[in-house]
């Protein structure tokens, strides 16, 4: 579904996704992402245009106000970055549906 690619820097992993949730990236998906990554040693960021949100922080991600159809870039770096990117992508793939985890 998604191909994880290394771009620009050998240490930074990036992937662009489109928000397909009808309600956009509201609090539940933001909380799921934060729960997933907050204990990981790597950095995880979501970028929308010029706005960058720390994916370990729900309040930061809500600040993106990413509606359905919005293109976001997920970026990870540091220890376990590649796997963490895959795990975050999985949440988008299953549309944050707890029954599909």
């Amino acid at each position, binding site marked *: 579904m998604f191909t994880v690619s290394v771009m620009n820097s050998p240490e930074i992993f990036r992937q662009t996704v489109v928000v397909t949730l*009808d309600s956009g990236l509201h609090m*539940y998906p933001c909380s799921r992402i*934060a729960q997933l990554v907050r204990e990981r040693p790597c950095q995880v960021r979501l970028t929308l245009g010029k706005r960058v949100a720390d994916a370990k922080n729900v309040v930061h991600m809500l600040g993106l106000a990413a509606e359905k159809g919005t293109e976001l870039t997920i970026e990870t770096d540091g220890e376990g970055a590649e796997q963490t990117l895959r795990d975050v992508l999985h949440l988008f793939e299953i549309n944050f549906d707890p029954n599909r985890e």
Partner: protein
Amino acid sequence: MKLSDFVVPDAILADMKVAAKEDAIRAMVASLKTTGSIRPEEEENIVKKLMEREELGSTGIGNGVAVPHTKHPSVDDLVATVAIVKDGVEFKSLDGGPVYILFLLISPPDRSGDHLRGLENISRHLRNQKFCSFLRQARTREDIIELLREADNNELDD
């Protein structure tokens, strides 16, 4: 969108005394009922929807803050209220800590964009340490109304 566009000033609770999450949600919804912002006959169902949302995952998002919210067909516009719990209340928050600041938001089901913008607006101010610190120190409803006004006017920015 500003806080004053959807926070009902008279429904703000500056010193809410509650023992548990459900008590907090009930008190805030009751306050919105008292101000006529929701219909009395919808109160119980709104509380039920808010609690169902909490079961999906706590809206206690860390740093002493919770934003319980739901969509509900009985409201035509976003309505919200703010409450401060001086001693904190257990909320099963993301970071495990108690909650001191609550924003409760109810939005019409067909207005996802407004709902997101409401959450964005609240979260933008909650990122401001000064805003959170002053909110916790507020003693009266008027203090909080003034603080929200200052936040809307970007007077609290560092």
